[in-house]
């Protein structure tokens, strides 16, 4: 049952990922990308990580993609895209090929598929995924968390300075 569900979701994810790069209208591409993010969120749910799923939808599908859609709408990108650039195609193919090899090597050689560490499905169910993540972030990973927040603060200040030159 779960495998069947996984396969259906995967099919949707792959089809929408292909649509992202084949759609002529950029808004439709953006919609397809949102669909892909949504499928990823479904995977997180299936991996007993509901908090990640909610954050995935909120941040990626909800916030970042809204900005992208805004940009596309305001720049008013025309549907009839210009001529195809062949060098983009060649480099794209090369990069894609090496990425594929990379993924295959990682999946075959390493134990990426096996769950390791103390966090099992039962533990997540009993304690709660949100609690576990929160505890880890504010104890073991406090320094990276603080550094990330400083990075975000810098980005916010930068955005304000770019937008309002006369302060």
């Amino acid at each position, binding site marked *: 049952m779960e495998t069947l569900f996984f396969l259906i979701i995967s099919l949707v994810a792959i089809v929408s990922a292909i649509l992202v790069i084949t759609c002529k209208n950029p808004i439709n591409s953006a919609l397809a990308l949102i669909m892909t993010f949504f499928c990823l969120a479904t995977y997180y749910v299936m991996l007993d990580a509901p908090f990640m799923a909610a954050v995935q939808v909120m941040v990626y599908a909800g916030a970042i993609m809204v900005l992208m859609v*805004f940009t596309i*709408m305001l720049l008013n990108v025309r549907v009839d895209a210009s001529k195809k650039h062949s060098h983009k195609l060649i480099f794209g193919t090369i990069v894609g090929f090496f990425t594929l090899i990379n993924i295959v090597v990682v999946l075959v050689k390493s134990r990426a598929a096996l769950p390791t560490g103390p966090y099992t499905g039962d533990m997540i169910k009993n304690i709660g995924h*949100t609690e576990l993540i929160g505890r880890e972030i504010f104890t073991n990973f406090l320094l990276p968390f603080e550094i990330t927040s400083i990075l975000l603060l810098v980005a916010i200040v930068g955005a304000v300075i770019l937008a309002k030159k006369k302060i």
Partner: protein
Amino acid sequence: MGIEILGLPMMYYIAMVAKVLLAFVFVLLTVAYATYAERKIIGHMQVRLGPMRTGWHGLLQPIADGLKLFFKEEIIPSQASTFAFLVAPLIALIPAFITFAVIPFGGVIEVAGYKIPLQIAAYYDTTAGQVFDVNVGVLYILAMSSLGVYGIVLAGWASNSKYSLMGGLRASAQMISYELAAGLSIIAVFMLSGTLSLTKIVELQSGMGGFEWYLFKQPLAAFMFFICSLAEINRTPFDLPEAETELVSGFCTEYSSMKYAMFFMAEYANMVTVCALTVTLFLGGWNGPLTNAMPLLGPVYFVAKVYFLMFVCMWIRATLPRYRYDQLMHLGWKVFIPVALVNIVVTGIIGYFL
């Protein structure tokens, strides 16, 4: 009850389907009659009668409206982006309905020896002896409501009309700003509850005959959340995206027939959801007198509280004029977000010393 499908008893599936149907029909009926109630209530508040002709005191008005919209001509503007134009109403409508899945509308009832929690996305685990629900319930609602923005943005853009685009842009800017403020204001509630699961939040508010409600512990958060939610679902006094006087009808100017009806339904369904969420977070959910003795009273209290809040929404609409755009942004970014942050800090300090 001996039959098992995929390791779960037959009653599990029956209960699930029954709960989904019940909640869906409830929201649909409420949406239909909320339009009628709104016209009637605002009418009486403005010393008019409201709809009177269709049926006794206009009671059949929603059905007549539905039929009218259903049989209207479907117009797709020739310059519109067809795909986005067609999916936009669906994207607006679906999140409005599926948010109801995690809202608990009653306690645990027992049917034929099988315990059923009255919340769609929840089940009673007999071995653990407790209810398991989506333990990120509130985040799920916030995530879904952030998807609702797309319906409006796309509708505005795909119509290929200036009024629609303006309406769509205003709507999305407004929804994104107020989503932040709404999210920040309920963090104070989670600091008290220590959980994101809506079932547990309701349980925590059950004691002291209603004085454990988070409304009394977090009055500022409750007030801010309700106002921000009104802004997020584009209700008056924040209904700038569909300001008739300046933007014709905002993002739905070019829509007709059932697609227009879908936007309309989405707006009212959002209103039901927001009121239900406010009831769950701040007004004790389905709690009330005698719910332990008679679990079926839970849904009654819940519906009564939701309807009261919906009445308040309509009351606000009849009373207040519309905000100006700069006032709206000022209120969201410079008043609500700082106050919500201060509220979080104060809650933290008080929580540390108690």
